């Protein structure tokens, strides 16, 4: 009774074609909420929701390992860190309100965002990619096999993998030292 419907089944077709619609809508809602969120904690939670929906988007793109890594790292660690920082930095009530902006900055921020989208959109439309008809039907084996990533990590990407390990340790120790409170 493995629930993985054979890839030919209609449900799977629907999911693989339109499956990425739901996370996208979730993502857009989360971002809208995040940009106008008044309360800091709610803003941090909406960002966590955005990361979660991005994880689902990766899932619909077939990169299963990436999706769970993204959820584990962003929703589990980064969002939690933000919540802790908000608690540690104890923004005063005035500051809470200050998180909400006087119209000006928000407008400026959104203006930049919209203009940039149009510029990038034009480049995407103009690029040869847009005209080329991409094969839309996904191959049967849609999700990336883990062995490939594993071999790559140990094989040709081993050096960068070790460098990454060193970087992560350095970040861990650095963050701990920076955040440690040295009050005598």
């Amino acid at each position, binding site marked *: *009774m*493995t*629930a*993985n*419907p054979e890839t030919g*089944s*209609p*449900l799977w077709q*629907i999911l693989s074609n339109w499956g990425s619609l739901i996370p996208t809508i979730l993502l857009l809602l989360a971002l809208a909420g995040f940009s106008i969120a008044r*309360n800091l*904690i*709610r803003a941090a*939670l909406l960002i*966590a929701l955005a990361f*979660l929906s991005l*994880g689902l988007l990766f899932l619909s793109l077939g990169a*299963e*390992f990436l*999706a*769970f*890594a993204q*959820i*584990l790292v962003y*929703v*589990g*660690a980064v*969002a*939690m860190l933000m*919540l802790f920082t908000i*608690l540690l930095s104890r923004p005063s009530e005035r500051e809470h309100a200050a998180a909400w902006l006087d119209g000006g900055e928000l407008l400026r921020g959104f203006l930049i965002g919209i203009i940039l989208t149009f510029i990038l959109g034009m480049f995407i439309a103009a690029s040869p990619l847009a005209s080329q008809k991409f094969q839309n039907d996904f191959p049967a084996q849609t*999700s990336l*096999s*883990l062995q490939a990533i594993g071999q790559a990590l140990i094989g040709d990407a081993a050096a960068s993998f070790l460098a990454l390990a060193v970087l992560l340790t350095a970040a861990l120790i650095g963050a701990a030292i920076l955040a440690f*409170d040295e*009050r005598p």
Partner: protein
Amino acid sequence: MIEELPTRLYAWFLQLLQKIGLPSIIVDIVGAFLIAISTCAVFLALFALTSVLERKILARVQNRLGPNRVGPFGLLQPVADGIKMLIKEDIIPHNADKILHFLAPVLALIPSLLVLAILPYGSNLVPVNLNSGLLYYFAISAIAEIAIFLAGWAGNNKYSVLGAMRAIAQILSYELPLATSALCVALAAGSLSLPQIVQSQNNYLLGLFPNWFLFTPWGLAAGLVFFIAALAETNRSPFDLPEGESELVAGHLTEYSGFKYATFFIAEYVGMFAICALFVTLFLGGWLPPLPFLAFIPSWIWFFAKVCFIAFVMIWIRATLPRMRIDHLLSFAWKFLLPLAFSAFFALLLWHYLGRNILSSLLSFAFIVAAYFALGYPFTQRYSPRKRTYLFSE
């Protein structure tokens, strides 16, 4: 015949739908829903059962009877508790964050139910066969941390925030040993997908001893670490400090009453069963029978028998051990569990690369015993309070 009962029932039901003439999309969707609802129903039934059995076992250990008023042997007690929880008034603190206050129990329950999707309940009874199932488990249980933070924060009560901080500190510091010991098993089995892990434990040594991972030398240490970290992960027994009634009233659950409070408990018990099932899948050979000729008993009966046995051990430990103090709890995780997990990791390398035979097993077993005694030694010493320099209090 009972072995394929669930699969055959499922297939028969889908054919029935097709015969009625429903479009195949609807049939697929209904099939998916059926699996989801049946899995959740099984685990919620287990929750209802254990909420009574736990109290009866605790009672029997203390030489008293335990609930026997409601229904035969007190088995209808969960119904009584459920109704009581529904009738109780649901108080929301004064200027608490209403949306977050409502969201926290929902966010606590969803991950513990989502996690049930990847566990192999029987030979081909896997709701969703992901090939990175183990990583899925850790990713989804990371969401439960946010729920605990929300529960603490939304109550607008300083002590519940403190309780939430303690709970998260405990869960984060026990996530590492949990992940490392699970990693050992994934390496030994060569894959992250749970059905494959169960398959790799399938052969029997000289036809008698099942070579489950728990009985391999490194598996003993990894299993011990996983079990202790599992206890801490679900805030149970000696590690239930965040909800310790004596210290912080009910930790992050102080501001909840009525059905929201019950939802947190459902989440905790289902989480307990999920992690018991994961322990069984990783170390006790999932649905494999302990002896080859016992295979006539259906596989999913073996699976749930082992899960109930591990749940019994968890309740047994809860009946015995007192609660640990927060700093002992954290230092135990960082000074004993994590190094032991890494030494299990090293023992696995010894065992695997010296050709999984008796010699390598003895060698890695010696290494594990040495590591266990070396790490455990400071914990057996009488606590000698050295002169502490206080950083914050003058």
